């Protein structure tokens, strides 16, 4: 089914440069810098209180930074630029007593859309989100899942060019998770920079092109998902064979981390030792797999925030 693009593809790039924010004595953000490239779905992960929400609020101009700046396409971001940002705050909320359509149209109009265009955008979007039967219901009368859908509509109704979503998956039912995922991937596919935070590392891992890991207000790691895996993969290797791999323990220069029948996870002291394992394995029978260990985001996360 052909669909209207949720965001406008203009290939913008968002850059956070040396952001610092203090709350009294507490340093909430300490020299935070990273880039959200055009069309890059960027996951922003960190524990509670790590500084994700503060960073996003500064990007949206809801908070001001003590130092540093937010740059869009090479120039400091202005109020005007920010009208083209789509934002889903961590603190969800809409007017409870306002009707769904009316509310979404109102938000589009605050962004500068004409009444007719605002209405058309809102209707398109609400239909896509499966709320077409609830247009005249008040928000408070909706189920929680539908309220979340209305919240997504609120973030997208003005066809933003940059998306910043704080915990977009929290509190969603499985159907809504799928909707949000498709929204995010569509947005990135059309060229918009997309930044979203999440506690659900598996979701982030599956969706993201790029990752930013933050802890205690400092960026601990950032870059493409694959590069981070490469970088933090360590020197552990996997061997999977048709037969038993118990012989691996006798190999020189090899330390077996885990072992289970035909599968083993090991570290090699030298490249030569590792190659020797492969040669030995081939001589003993059928090798199913011999590869660097697949590092999960959870592992990388634990390692970099330690």
């Amino acid at each position: 089914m052909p669909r209207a693009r949720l965001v406008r593809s203009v290939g913008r790039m968002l850059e956070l440069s040396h952001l610092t924010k203090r709350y009294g004595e507490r340093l909430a953000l300490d020299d935070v810098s990273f880039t959200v490239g055009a069309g890059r779905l960027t996951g922003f992960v960190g524990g509670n209180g790590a500084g994700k929400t503060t960073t996003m609020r500064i990007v949206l101009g809801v908070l001001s930074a003590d130092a540093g700046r937010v740059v869009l396409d090479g120039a400091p971001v202005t109020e005007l630029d920010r009208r083209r940002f789509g934002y889903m705050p961590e603190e969800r909320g809409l007017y409870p007593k306002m009707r769904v359509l009316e509310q979404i149209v109102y938000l589009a109009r605050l962004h500068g859309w004409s009444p007719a265009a605002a209405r058309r955008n809102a209707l398109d979007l609400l239909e896509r989100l499966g709320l077409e039967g609830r247009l005249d219901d008040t928000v408070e009368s909706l189920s929680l899942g539908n309220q979340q859908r209305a919240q997504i509509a609120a973030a997208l109704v003005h066809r933003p060019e940059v998306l910043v979503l704080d915990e977009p998956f929290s509190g969603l039912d499985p159907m809504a998770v799928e909707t949000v995922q498709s929204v995010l991937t569509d947005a990135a596919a059309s060229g918009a920079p997309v930044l979203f935070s999440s506690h659900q590392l598996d979701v982030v891992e599956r969706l993201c092109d790029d990752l930013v890991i933050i802890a205690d207000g400092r960026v601990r790691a950032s870059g493409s998902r694959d590069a981070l895996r490469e970088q933090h993969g360590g020197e552990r290797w996997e061997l999977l064979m048709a037969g038993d791999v118990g012989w691996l323990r006798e190999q020189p220069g090899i330390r077996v981390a885990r072992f289970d029948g035909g599968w083993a996870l090991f570290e090699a002291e030298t490249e030569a030792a590792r190659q020797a394992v492969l040669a030995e394995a081939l001589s003993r029978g059928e090798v199913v797999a011999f590869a660097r260990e697949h590092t999960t985001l959870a592992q990388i996360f634990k390692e970099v925030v330690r």
Partner: protein
Amino acid sequence: MTTDARLEPERTTPRFTRIVGLVAGREIMSRLRSKAFLISTGILMLAVLASVILPSVFASDDEAAPVAVVGAAASVADGVDGLEPVAVTDRAEGEELLRDGEVDAVLVPAGGDGVGVSVIGLDQPPGQVVSALSVSPAVELLDPAPVDTGLAYLVAFGFGIVFFMSAITFGSTIASSVVEEKQTRVVELLLSTVTARSLLTGKIVGNSVMAFGQIVAIAGLALIGLAATGQRVLLGGVGPSIVWFAIFFTVGFVMLAALFAGTASMVSRVEDVGSTTTPVTMLIMIPYFLVVFFFDDPAVLAVMSYVPFSAPIGMPVRIFLGDAAWWEPILSLGILAATTVAAVLVGERIYRNSLLRMGSRVKLGEALAR
């Protein structure tokens, strides 16, 4: 083919005034949809109408007013309901009866066309007599009293209660509207779209329009009620002070609305709003009680008419009493306007600093920080 091949949509960069208009419009619509608001407004309107009409209903049960008629004036008073003509030979005899309290007024033929009459009262216009006559006669007083104290009390009380009711009603409306946005967390989404200043201005404008609309409706209803029951006499004296009241009220309400919005934004739950808005409520209640108790004390009224928080009541009352020189309301309005600007700036700063601080009450010092 995808639908984004459509024309580039109608989108502009919204100006401050347009945002304010949108926010104000939403405030007004949500108020007009509230049943509680419609019912309380209806009750208030009925109360105003009743207070205007009932006195004249009861007055018409009174026995006819005795009037002395001189010569040809008898033809005007004859057969008029509510008048009991007593024929006298000349104006001097009539005036004697008037001073003795035998009659309420003397009717004498007006010079010239011979049809009209002049009404002579003792110290104030004899309202019942004047309103009973089908033509508006000229009125003359033997010993004009400065202003009827009963009427002065009514006017002072009227301005006081209307200001008090409207300011409290719409002040607490704006307060709860601010906290509601905070409590429902919609405020962060709003602030990522528009500035705190335009949001606050829209709220103040929307609620001021509602408050002013209510005042106009009340004034209109009162005037129609007075006219319909033939109490025109009262109107002439009150008119200018009502106009000044409307002007002072509008400016004064903006000041109070800004303070209500600022103080309300310091709390996170609607239940707690009283804890920070009480000082502002006091600023409305004190002038009301002062004017009710001291409406006949020129010194207190003079001070009240210059203090910004009581000027919307004090100055119109003084204008009604004829105590204020022509420049006094203008000077007082200037003071009020300057205070209003200051209140809006302070209110906005508190508002901006407190909006995203959820949880416990924001301390005033922190709310005022840059």
